[in-house]
Structures are given as structure tokens and as C-alpha cells.
């Protein structure tokens, strides 16, 4: 049975931005389609329209020639459109089985049979009776997929499914998707990862700034051509020069442990490493393996034993972030909007969050607004933040500009060490390039970086040494030249 899904002249306008500008696309079953685009290109909006989460301002959707009215996710389900979101919609404390049957009104026993058949057919092995919180990210995703398959969908939409998966889990997923496709399910695969598109898909539609820019067959494309279509310009590739090897140790972490009271946090177990001057240490890992805790321990948001961190010949494990800044450390956390900056406050107020003593932002307990503003202007011009109004609330900056502001704020004090956590997460390619260049420049000035990132390509590009964190433990530290992304993938999955 053939499935034909047609999107016809769909437009969705948000205040100040056209998320989808007259998009028309046609899909047929038997093929795997990629929907490719940068963050903010409009692909999420489009799939949310397909899954009934968002109602378009204009345009129609046809499934096998029938005009669909998708006013809610339920309508999409009824019309055999299944969707697996990037962020899982599972109840962590309920069992796998309970999660699977929660939105179905079929009889429990018949559902159990159905689920067993699906699991056997696709070789999924998940214990149905354990709570979801005990599953790995890959297994959780399988639960989401099974939940769609129960309804025997005609269309299955996957939204950036590999962002939380290991290399191995990714290839398993691809195998399953190919199988689904052979069985006649129409698959739409949303991503910004070019490699995956080349590996998995048959056809690719590229979106940029709300518009559909091209539809083509994969065999006529290569990674460079797709990248250029996605970004709309020819990208220069940045490369890091091999750093002069220095043996001058800047920071040393010795036997550091952290045990959390929060069951959703990861404990850190016996962390040991050191970073020399001018060096970038990359820490890879799948998110949720202790990166956030490691960042907080390094930044001083979590205090540890005094002797566990030695920086520039001082023991600083028991100091808070502000005190550590005085020793010339700087921090750029992962969460731009909830931690590194306060969106409701003005740009210059956000600059004042880095209260480095000799910046003189606060004198005798009073705010020195002129000084802060002067500083802010310098950051804006030195780090290419695209605004000239420091009184602007920072929520009106784009992600890239906000990240530049944050990195600028941290670097303006010329720290010896910058610790950053997913610094380019969710940014467009232009901003990513800028941040990468900036980080390379820091190393060239003989200053050091600890880069915690879930983006393997970024790590391989910027690091001199790489380690992998898995379940709160660090792997041995390797030279970046000896490492491949396959090797990292294996370590990220927990193997040795």
C-alpha cells in the first residue's frame, strides 16, 4: 500500500519571524526523507504542523489525497502520523509498559501481545516492567518508537533523534528505520547533521530561514554541497594549528569525587586530569553522563575538597565561582538562558554578572554603572555582538549573539583558563565558526581551555587532548591525533 503525504503552501508567521514561508513538499512511502536545516530554519515548525502541535496560518496537508485537519496531536495520531520528538515525552517513574499504553484505550492484554510482536519483529529487547528512568537514552527512544508503532502509522517523523545517542545506538536506529521504510512506512527524518543524511536518506529537502531551498536525491549531493545549501554561503573551514607542546601545568584535578543527593544527577567518581598552558582538553560524552556536574565542580558552583583542584599552584577546591575568577578562571555554562545570562535583564547588567574585582563594577557595595557600561561597549565591539544598544534586554539577542556576549564577558578579564560547556549548542553555523575561531585564538595566546561538549566533531576540531566521560568516570586522556570519532563513540557507550 502506497502512502502519499503532501504539504501544500504552508505558511506560519510568528511575530517578527516567518517560520514557514509558503512551503510545499511531497513525500511517498518506500523512501526515507531528510529534512535538513540549521536551528531556526523552520523544520521543527513544519513537523509540529504535521503532528498537529501547531496550526498553520495558511496551507493544507493531504494524506493520500485526503485533506487533513490537524488541530491537535490527537488528530495526527488518528490520521496515522506518528512522531518521535527530540526530547522524550515519557513518564520517568512509570514502567515501560505503562508508558506504552498510557494514550491508548485498547485492552491491556491485546496491547501486550501487540507490543511483544513488534519487539520480536524489530529485535528490540527492553524489559517492559522496569521504570523508564532506568533506561538508557537509546532504549527510551525505542519506547517512543514502539508507542508510535502500536498504532501502525503510515508516517513516522523523527525529530533530531540521534542527539542523545551513541554511535552504536545510532546505527541500530538506522537499521530499524530502513526496515520500517521497507515495510511501507513513510519516514521523515529531521536533522542538521549532514553525515547522517548521506548515510540514511534517499531524498533531502533543505530549509533555510523558513523557506524550502532545495529538494534533491541524495545520490546527486555530497556533504559540501548540502552544507552550502543549508547555510547559503560557502563556508571557510577553520583548522587549528598544532599547538607548541608546553609542559607548564596550569590546573590539576586529583582524586575528585562528588556524590549527589539528587537521584537525577550523576555522581563523579575519582576524576583525575591536568591541563597545561596553551592546551585545550576536550571532554566528550553523551549528555547526562556527569558533564553538568563536572562543569559545576570545576566552576565552583559545587564546592569540593580544597586539595582536589590545584590551579596555578594554589589549592582552590573550596572556593566559589567568584573567588575562582580572581585566580583567572572563567566559565561559560551550557544553559545560556537560564544560567549564563538572565534574559529579562539588560545587556550591561548581564555583563556585571562576572564580578572580577579589578573591573571595579561595584565599589563599597554600590553599583558603578558607568564602569559596567564602558566595559559592555568594549565587549560588544571586541566580540562582534550584533547590537549597539547595551540597554537592550538580552532576551532580544539571538542565541549566537548572546553566546558571543557571554564568551566576551568571560574573556575580557584575560583569564588563564576558560571552562566551557557545549559553547555552540543550538547556534547557527556562522556563530559556531566565530566561537571556534575565538577558542583557537585563546590557545594561541598560551591560555588553556577545558571544553566539555557533546559534539564530537567540535571536540576533534578544537582539542589537543581528549577524554570521555561515562557514568561520571573519565576515560584515560588521549592525544587528539590518535582519536577518531568511532573510537570516541565506543568509549561514550561505556566500553573500554
Amino acid at each position: 500500500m502506497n502512502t502519499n503525504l503532501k504539504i501544500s503552501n504552508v505558511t506560519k508567521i510568528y511575530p517578527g519571524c516567518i517560520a514557514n514561508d509558503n512551503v510545499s513538499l511531497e513525500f511517498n512511502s518506500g523512501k526515507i526523507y531528510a529534512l535538513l536545516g540549521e536551528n531556526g530554519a523552520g523544520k521543527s515548525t513544519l513537523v509540529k504542523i504535521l503532528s498537529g502541535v501547531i496550526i498553520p496560518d495558511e496551507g493544507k496537508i493531504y494524506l493520500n489525497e485526503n485533506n487533513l485537519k490537524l488541530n491537535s496531536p490527537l488528530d495526527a495520531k488518528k490520521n496515522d502520523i506518528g512522531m518521535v520528538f527530540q526530547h522524550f515525552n515519557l513518564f520517568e517513574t512509570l514502567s515501560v509498559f505503562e508508558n506504552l499504553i498510557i494514550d491508548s484505550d485498547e485492552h491491556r492484554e491485546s496491547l501486550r501481545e501487540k507490543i511483544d510482536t513488534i519487539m520480536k519483529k524489530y529485535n528490540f529487547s527492553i524489559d517492559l516492567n522496569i521504570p523508564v528512568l532506568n533506561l538508557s537514552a537509546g532504549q527510551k527512544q525505542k519506547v517512543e518508537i514502539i508507542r508510535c508503532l502500536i498504532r501502525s502509522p503510515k508516517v513516522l517523523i523523527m525529530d533530531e533523534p540521534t542527539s542523545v545517542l551513541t554511535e552504536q545506538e545510532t546505527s541500530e536506529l538506522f537499521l530499524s528505520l530502513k526496515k520500517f521504510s521497507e515495510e511501507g512506512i513513510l519516514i521523515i527524518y529531521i536533522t542538521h547533521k549532514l553525515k547522517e543524511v548521506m548515510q540514511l536518506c534517499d531524498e533531502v529537502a533543505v530549509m533555510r530561514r523558513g523557506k524550502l531551498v532545495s529538494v534533491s536525491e541524495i545520490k546527486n549531493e555530497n556533504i559540501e554541497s548540502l552544507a552550502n545549501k543549508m547555510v547559503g554561503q560557502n563556508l571557510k573551514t577553520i583548522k587549528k594549528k598544532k599547538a607548541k607542546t608546553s609542559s607548564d601545568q596550569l590546573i590539576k584535578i586529583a582524586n575528585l569525587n562528588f556524590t549527589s543527593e539528587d537521584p537525577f544527577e550523576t555522581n563523579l567518581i575519582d576524576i583525575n586530569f591536568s591541563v597545561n598552558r596553551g592546551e585545550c582538553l576536550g571532554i566528550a560524552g553523551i549528555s547526562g553522563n556527569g558533564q553538568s556536574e563536572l562543569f559545576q565542580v570545576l566552576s565552583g558552583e559545587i564546592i569540593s575538597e580544597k586539595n582536589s583542584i590545584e590551579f596555578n599552584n594554589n589549592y582552590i577546591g573550596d572556593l566559589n565561582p567568584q573567588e575562582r575568577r580572581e585566580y583567572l578562571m572563567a566559565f561559560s555554562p551550557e544553559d545560556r538562558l537560564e544560567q549564563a545570562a538572565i534574559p529579562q535583564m539588560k545587556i550591561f547588567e548581564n555583563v556585571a554578572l562576572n564580578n572580577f574585582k579589578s573591573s571595579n563594577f561595584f565599589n563599597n557595595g554600590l553599583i558603578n554603572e558607568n564602569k559596567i557600561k564602558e566595559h559592555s561597549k568594549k565587549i560588544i565591539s571586541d566580540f562582534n555582538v550584533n547590537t549597539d544598544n547595551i540597554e537592550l534586554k538580552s532576551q532580544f539577542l539571538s542565541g549566537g549573539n548572546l553566546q558571543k556576549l557571554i564568551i566576551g564577558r568571560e574573556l575580557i578579564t584575560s583569564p588563564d583558563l576558560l571552562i566551557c560547556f557545549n559553547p555552540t549548542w543550538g547556534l547557527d553555523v556562522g556563530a559556531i565558526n566565530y566561537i571556534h575561531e575565538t577558542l583557537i585564538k585563546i590557545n594561541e595566546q598560551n591560555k588553556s581551555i577545558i571544553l566539555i561538549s557533546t559534539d564530537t566533531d567540535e571536540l576533534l576540531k578544537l582539542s589537543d587532548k581528549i577524554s570521555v566521560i561515562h557514568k561520571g568516570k573519565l576515560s584515560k586522556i588521549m592525544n587528539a591525533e590518535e582519536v577518531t570519532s568511532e573510537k570516541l563513540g565506543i568509549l561514550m557507550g561505556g566500553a573500554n
Partner: protein
Amino acid sequence: MIKIVKRDQPSRAIFFFTPVLAIFLTLVAGGLIFFILGFKPFEALKFFFIVPIADKYGFSELLLKATPLCLIAIGLSFCFKSNNWNIGAEGQLTFGAIVSGGVALLFYEQEGFYILPIVILAGAIGGMLYASIPAILKTYFNTNEILVSLMLVYVSKLILDYLVVGPWSNPEGFNFPETRQFSDSAKLPLLFEGLRIHAGIFLALAAVVISWFVFYKTYLGFQMKVSGFSLKTAKYAGYKGKKMIILVFLISGACAGLAGVGEITGPIGQLHREISPDYGFTAIIVAFLGRLHPVGIIFASLVVAITYLGAETAQIFMQIPKYTGQVFQGMILFFLLASDYLLFFKIKFIGSKK
């Protein structure tokens, strides 16, 4: 056709205009209610809003009612600006009054210049102690401060009830639920002969100035603001976020406690059952009507104070229950919240095109 469009940036002019709009809409709706009840709307509104403050005595009464409202609202603005929802100012007022009243009773029949400052201080400390309960429970045990602070209001009122009926009741008071009269040294001086306005108003004005300074000019105020928006950011910046939460609760409790002191050591001069006509709750409206800004709060406290007085005149001259005052207070808040919609959205009138 009318279309609602999101604003790119909240409008600053609208920010100050909406409170005025809210008051205007309250007057219109109030007039309408009077009309439905069979009164002449304009006359009724005049009795409500103009007659009560037309003379010197009325004006003094206005300031008398506005003083606690202003004082409490200033304290609350510290909490609300930093996203701490202390709605138990009434309880902090009551407990402040209990502690300061207790101290005043200790000095029964004693005179001395030192007594009044001690009594005032005791009230502030009482309010702080009482506010520290929701603050500590929130910071160390993750409880919800809205529930805790609200429930503690009723606890404090019952404590007061017990004290004025039981151990602290006036031995020569024929079993009336009230304490002895405080000595003159424990009372806030009246400002004018024959009027009830007392020195408590200076406490309120001082609170206005200090809060403005702290919030807009000091590092401490900056840290409070940051901690209020995001504890994670505060931690990352190296601030002691939890201490900031406790601090804003203490400030707010102290202000409410001082308002309590004003109520019992002013014209009344004793503890009794009904020391506050829900000033602690009404001050929440005042704080928001004044846009959490010290100067705005002054104006808002005057406006809301009129509803107290108006309700009394309306009861006397028009036989309307005095609870109409609360209806007006409710309407102000309602219309304020409703017109705040205009902060983020604007209404566009589109011509007959389609």
C-alpha cells in the same frame, strides 16, 4: 476586524499607563454596580472617593490608612521583584504587633524615651522572625512559600486571639478581648492635635527611600535581583542565592512588623482582636498597582487607602455594606492584571480588507 499582535518589546509608556487605566476601569465598573443597585452612579462614586477626603480629618485618615499599606507593599516589593511569593504579610504584621505589644506591656506604667525605640524594634524583629519561617522552609526544604506564608497568617491571628482573651487580657477590662493601654512612652506620637495621623508615616517614607536606594544603587540589590530571576545564575556568579531569599523575606517581614507596630502603638494604644483590616493582603494589590516601584507604591497606597475610607462613608450615607471596599480592591487588581495584557500585546484595528 481586530487583530492582536505581540509587541517586540514591552512598552515603557504602557507600563505606567496600565495602572491608571485599571483605576479608570474600576471607577466605570464601580459606577455600573452602583447603578444596578439603584444608586445614582456619580453621586455614589462621589461618596466613595471624594467626600471621605474632602476635609482635614479625612485627609489625615487617608494617610493613616495609606501608611501601613505603603510600608508593607515596600517590603513585599523586595520579595516580589526577586520572585519570592510572600503573601503572608498579614501574619507578619500580626506577629510583629504581638511581639511589640508584648514588649510595650512589659513597660506598662513606665515612662522613658528609650521605650518607644525598643517597642518599634521588637515589632520589626517579630515580623522578621515570622517571615523567616517560610523563607527557611523554602530554601532548605523546598516548600512552597505561598502556602506556608498564607497558612501562617491564620496561625498568628489565633495566637493573638488567645493572648488577648487569655494571659494578656486587661485584668480591669471586664473580660473584653483586649490588653491594657500602653504607657504614653510606648506610643507613636500624634502629629497634629485632634487628628489621628501619627509618626508611623515617617517609617513608611524612610522605607520608600531606603528601598529605592538598595534596589537601584547597591550591589546587594543587584544580587537580590539576580537571585530572584534565577538561582542557578546566582550560584554561577558566586552569589549566595539562598541567603538572598532569606534576606528579602526578612526585609519584607520587618516592614510588615513595623506596620503592625504602627497599628497598635498609634491612636489605639493596645492589642486587641482586630488590629488590621487585612492590610497585609491589600498591600499585595498596592505593590502591583505601584509596579513594585517605590514611588509608584506611594501613589498606589493612597488610591487603595481611599477604598477603605469610601467603604465607611458609603455605609454611613448610603447604607451599602462596607465590604464594597473589598469589591473595589478586587476590581483594581482584576483590571490591572487584565490591562497588563497590553504590555505584551497591542490591538490593531484592520480595515475592511477581508
